[in-house]
């Protein structure tokens, strides 16, 4: 019975604080963008002429079908991250797409119309080498997968294995490629490095070895078949040797001897230092490949060649040509060549954009415009009217891959569309004569860090603000100023009204307020902001938070592949006429060397401020609340000699630093040695270690250190208890939450630890150990609480634990908090709960003044983002309900936290692989802006305590006005009636 009452109480509470999306709010202030990642393989769906699909398999282990008309996703399948979900090969036949996944572990076949799985089979272990479709008599029914030691053939219809054979002499021969041209034989090509080629021919029927060639074909120069050989024409294995500057050809059917054809005999010359590459095309796996092929002689030099009766003939020379590609439609095969138009940007421009580092590739020039032309593959002749202009983004990267979708027009000529992939992971789909149909910024699938920056005020707004900033110079001028600013306001208002009126006459579809950089301005409640996103590829984006439109993009050319990024806002938009300024610290994780990129977050332009060169590896960077005379916050960089440098480092800043040095503390974490150490700044900008905590790395290692967010406000100092006394919160701004995990992963002995350390004094405030638990641990540290989530190995479930710190019933020093003067240890309360799902990431909501109650935003693997009221994670939740706890509105303790789909802030707009959730306060106290990023990006607003400061959007204006009118008329009528009555009474 008691349980029932509890349950009922719980329900009541749940309903009371429920906060959810209403159906009519869908898409009103939220948006989602779905990405797939950098494309590794791509195929146009050609089996139906009118098909609109392009299949892409990406480096983020995603397999998806895109709509070629709009660039949107038809469907998308997100596999596991890491090597186990890695897509090794994509083969397409008809409406089936076959994928080899996880280094040859799985073979999957997808139905591309529906996006469902046809079949999935597990392959024997062994590292994957190559795969190909095998056809017989113009029918493709099998797929062959080559592993290091074995070859297997599977039916396309159901995935069943037809046969599997171990390869001979695998100790010496390195088998690398498999080839078939529809004659019932499968060729496996291997190489004994620096010695000879080995070829094994299998019969398609039963896997019997028909022929085996070893030792006889000498090829001492060859070590990688896939990189330097292709099969051309009637089974002619053609290789190119860069050292010997010649072709080597071997007829796979005869396998006698490799014939050498020097490139010079064809009047071809390879660029010095360039490894030539061959490109051939096999339109149908049941047929032989084309006898025409491309040879790349230099970075921008291609040659179309033809094999005719065993003789190679040069057909056409393409220089300059950036990319080439073959495409087949029906019986026709064309070659597309992308070449730069003569406008080029000189090298110095890029060097100027990142002056601190030399440009790595010597040929990093950008072509503003490129053109794609079609050439007939058979003749090498240029097809008329097939030019397509590609305008390259000057802030983007070089084109990297060209995919061509060819189709037959009504007059039997070949038309085409091109998909260009550039270095910065952008996909651009272009139609003739150069119309960009869509662009996908796939770099956004890997956002590393982001910030939200307030938009600037408009000119008029800035003018108004200026009135209050300037020094007063007399009464009269003040009045004049006030009048003039009021006039400006009136003018702006009339303009706004006029625009409203003008827009109202237009049909709704035409009224589209296009947001461009020029008309960006802050809105009334500061709800619209600029999202500055930094991606792993080194491309920066500026996105309008209201619409999700990309307003600027900037590709940083020489970002190391394993770079770590930290984005800091040095100057906000509040300091008109000084432009806002963001600084991005890019650090190579291996060397520790860093560079700074300083830019304007609103326009994405590189700032004129020259950042300092950083010759030493950087250990730590910190933003100080100090400002220089231009209102830029000071960034301190600590190098591996524990020397501190400041940016900007003007005299003013250095002077301020000297004055402040005694109160600037920072800490360093060395997780490999388990060392946490605190430092203090000296006046000469050297540092002094003041504390050190060693966590023995043999037993446990530090996995994360979380401080509080510097822009967080706490409104109430304490909590009012049921008996009207106040329990004061322990609000230490310098508190760090350190999470450790045991190195022993045995499920009986593993544990996680949480340490609360004061970052100034190094004093350990609290230490908690969770036994029989392991990571990954997600932590949120805010106000006076720390919430963390871990996996309990004992009960095999996810658990949340919350720690809250209180000073007690009285405050030691209520005016300021000083870490150096706090004699009493805080009271620590802790409680744990069961959570019925694993989680991907966690963050707390943040509002302007901290009055609004807090919610935890939890990214789930299912793609939902759960908004869990912090109220449920409160260590003071009582087990037995008393009068006082009810007075305090405490929810009775229940071990399990619930996941209610009504609490999903993103309803069915799931966000795959959530990696981070960014929260920012808006101008409204009730509203918190949320951006969840991972493979997708989702932006919305949340109202943790509902919208208490603005009228709700379902506010019933009709009702209130009708009631008002009714009351007004009622009073009128009753007045009249009363008058009549009075008159009557007077007469009586």
């Amino acid at each position, binding site marked *: 019975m008691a349980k029932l009452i509890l349950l009922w109480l719980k329900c009541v509470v749940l309903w009371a604080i429920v906060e959810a999306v209403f*159906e009519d709010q869908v898409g009103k202030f939220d948006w989602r963008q779905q990405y797939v990642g950098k494309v590794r393989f791509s195929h146009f769906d050609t089996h139906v002429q009118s098909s609109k699909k392009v299949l892409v398999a990406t480096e983020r282990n995603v397999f998806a079908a895109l709509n070629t008309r709009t660039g949107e996703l038809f469907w998308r399948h997100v596999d596991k991250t890491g090597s186990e979900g890695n897509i090794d090969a994509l083969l397409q036949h008809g409406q089936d797409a076959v994928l080899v996944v996880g280094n040859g572990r799985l073979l999957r076949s997808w139905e591309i119309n529906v996006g469902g799985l046809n079949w999935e089979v*597990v392959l024997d272990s062994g590292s994957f080498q190559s795969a190909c479709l095998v056809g017989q008599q113009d029918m493709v029914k099998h797929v062959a997968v080559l592993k290091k030691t074995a070859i297997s053939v599977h039916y396309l219809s159901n995935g069943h294995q037809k046969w599997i054979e171990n390869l001979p002499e695998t100790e010496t021969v390195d088998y690398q490629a498999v080839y078939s041209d529809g004659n019932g034989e499968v060729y496996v090509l291997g190489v004994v490095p620096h010695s000879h080629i080995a070829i094994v021919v299998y019969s398609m029927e039963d896997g019997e070895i028909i022929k085996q060639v070893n030792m006889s074909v000498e090829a001492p120069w060859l070590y990688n078949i896939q990189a330097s050989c292709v099969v051309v024409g009637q089974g002619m294995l053609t290789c190119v040797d860069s050292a010997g500057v010649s072709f080597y050809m071997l007829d796979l059917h005869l396998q006698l001897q490799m014939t050498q054809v020097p490139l010079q005999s064809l009047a071809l010359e390879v660029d010095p230092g360039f490894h030539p590459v061959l490109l051939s095309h096999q339109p149908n796996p049941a047929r032989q490949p084309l006898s025409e092929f491309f040879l790349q002689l230099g970075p921008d030099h291609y040659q179309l060649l033809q094999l005719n009766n065993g003789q190679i003939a040069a057909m056409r020379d393409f220089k300059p040509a950036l990319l080439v590609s073959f495409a087949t439609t029906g019986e026709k095969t064309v070659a597309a060549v992308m070449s730069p138009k003569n406008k080029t940007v000189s090298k110095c421009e890029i060097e100027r954009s990142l002056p601190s580092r030399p440009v790595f590739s010597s040929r990093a020039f950008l072509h503003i415009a490129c053109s794609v032309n079609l050439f007939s593959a058979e003749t090498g002749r240029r097809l008329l009217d097939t030019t397509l202009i590609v305008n390259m983004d000057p802030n983007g990267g070089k084109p990297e891959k060209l995919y061509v979708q060819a189709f037959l027009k009504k007059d039997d000529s070949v038309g085409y569309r091109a998909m260009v992939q550039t270095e910065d992971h952008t996909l651009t789909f272009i139609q003739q004569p150069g119309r960009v149909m869509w662009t996908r910024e796939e770099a956004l699938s890997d956002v590393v860090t982001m910030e939200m920056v307030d938009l600037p005020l408009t000119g008029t707004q800035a003018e108004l603000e*200026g009135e209050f900033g300037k020094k007063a110079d007399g009464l009269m001028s003040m009045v004049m100023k006030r009048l003039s600013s009021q006039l400006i306001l009136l003018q702006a208002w009339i303009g706004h009204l006029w625009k409203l009126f003008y827009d109202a006459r237009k049909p709704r579809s035409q009224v589209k307020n296009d947001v461009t950089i020029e008309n960006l301005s802050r809105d009334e409640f500061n709800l619209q902001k600029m999202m500055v996103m930094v991606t792993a590829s080194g491309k920066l984006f500026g996105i309008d938070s209201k619409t999700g439109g990309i307003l600027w993009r900037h590709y940083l050319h020489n970002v190391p592949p394993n770079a770590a990024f930290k984005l800091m806002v040095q100057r906000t938009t509040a300091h008109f006429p000084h432009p806002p300024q963001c600084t991005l610290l890019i*650090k190579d994780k291996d060397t520790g060397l860093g560079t700074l990129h300083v830019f304007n977050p609103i326009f994405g332009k590189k700032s004129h401020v020259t950042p300092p060169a950083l010759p030493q590896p950087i250990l*730590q960077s910190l933003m100080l609340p*100090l400002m220089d005379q231009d209102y830029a916050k000071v960034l301190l960089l600590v190098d591996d000699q524990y020397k501190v440098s400041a940016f900007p480092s003007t005299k003013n800043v250095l002077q301020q630093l000297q004055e402040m040095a005694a109160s600037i503390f920072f800490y360093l974490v*060395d997780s490999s040695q388990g060392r946490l150490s605190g430092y203090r700044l000296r006046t000469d900008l050297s540092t002094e270690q003041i504390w050190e905590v060693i966590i023995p790395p043999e037993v446990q*290692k530090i996995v994360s250190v979380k401080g509080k967010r510097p822009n967080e406000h706490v409104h109430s100092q304490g909590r009012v208890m049921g008996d009207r006394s106040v329990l004061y919160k322990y609000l230490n701004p310098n508190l760090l939450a350190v999470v450790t995990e045991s190195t022993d992963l045995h499920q009986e002995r593993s544990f996680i630890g949480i340490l609360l350390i004061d*970052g100034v004094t190094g004093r350990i405030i609290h230490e908690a150990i969770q036994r029989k638990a392991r990571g990954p641990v997600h932590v949120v540290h805010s106000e006076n609480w720390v919430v963390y989530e871990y996996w309990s190995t004992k009960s095999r479930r996810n658990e949340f634990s919350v720690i809250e710190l209180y000073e007690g019933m009285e405050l030691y020093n209520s005016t300021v908090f000083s870490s150096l003067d706090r004699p009493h240890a805080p009271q620590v309360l802790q409680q744990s709960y069961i959570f019925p799902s*694993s989680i991907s990431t966690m963050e707390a909501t943040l509002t302007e003044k901290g009055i609004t109650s807090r919610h935890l935003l939890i990214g789930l693997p299912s793609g939902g983002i759960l908004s869990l009221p912090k109220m449920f994670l409160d260590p003071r939740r009582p087990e037995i309900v008393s009068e006082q706890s009810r007075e305090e509105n405490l929810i009775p303790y229940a071990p399990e936290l619930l996941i209610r789909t009504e609490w999903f802030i993103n309803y069915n707009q799931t966000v795959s692989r959530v990696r981070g959730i960014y929260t920012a306060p808006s101008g409204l106290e009730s509203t918190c802006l949320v951006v969840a990023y991972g493979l997708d990006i989702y932006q919305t607003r949340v109202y943790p305590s509902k919208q208490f400061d603005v009228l709700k959007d379902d506010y019933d204006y009709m009702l209130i006005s009708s009631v008002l009118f009714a009351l007004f008329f009622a009073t009128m009528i009753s007045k009249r009636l009363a008058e009549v009555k009075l008159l009557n009474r007077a007469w009586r």
Partner: protein
Amino acid sequence: MLQRERIPLQLIFLQAALVVAWCFTDVETGPGAGVSTQPNGDRFKIEGRAIVPGIKTQDWVSTARVLVEGEEYVGFLRTDGSFAVNDVPSGSYVVEVVTPTYRFEPVRVDITTKGKMRARLVNYIKTSEVIRQPYPLQIRASGPHSYFMKRETWGWTDFLMNPMVMMMVLPLLIIVLLPKVVNTNDPEMRKEMEQSMNMLNPNPELPDVSELMTKLFSGSKGSSKAGSSSKGTRPAAKRR
């Protein structure tokens, strides 16, 4: 010059501020899946079928995934709604079918080291409790997800059933109807009523609030306005 972000400098001096900034101190992420990486351990396959009653499988399978223990193992649905998650070592796992539209209950699957399978209901509180489920799994959708709250719509019945409105309407009815029902001209009745009025008003010296109000309003704006101000107590005052 406008300075929005003014910093309380004194505060900084006093409180020995630590700027909590932590970035490039190389802290690795957690050890990932510690248990799942046993080399050469036997790997098994979790099989089953997901059913959404009344919906064609083509319409939902492309958005569905099978998640085993979070995202540790991932499986996809075949075009007929069946699924198999390959390469799972022995252990106990929670298997979930996730789609943005339909709700499926999770199932716990236990795999012994020999590869024997068993499915049971998920119970996070009593983790050892066994309520068997069929294996291969048969997971039926229990309906679409409910993501949205219903808007409170305004209707006459809601308005009338509102307790405040009821409290206003009922006395009004009594005031209007009671004088009609009870004959006020009867002197006995009048006496009785007066008595009851006095009972209600325990302190006769204290001025009646309603009376005070009527006087106040009638004094300034004529007696007609007062009629609407306090309906409940007005007739009582009039009677006296």
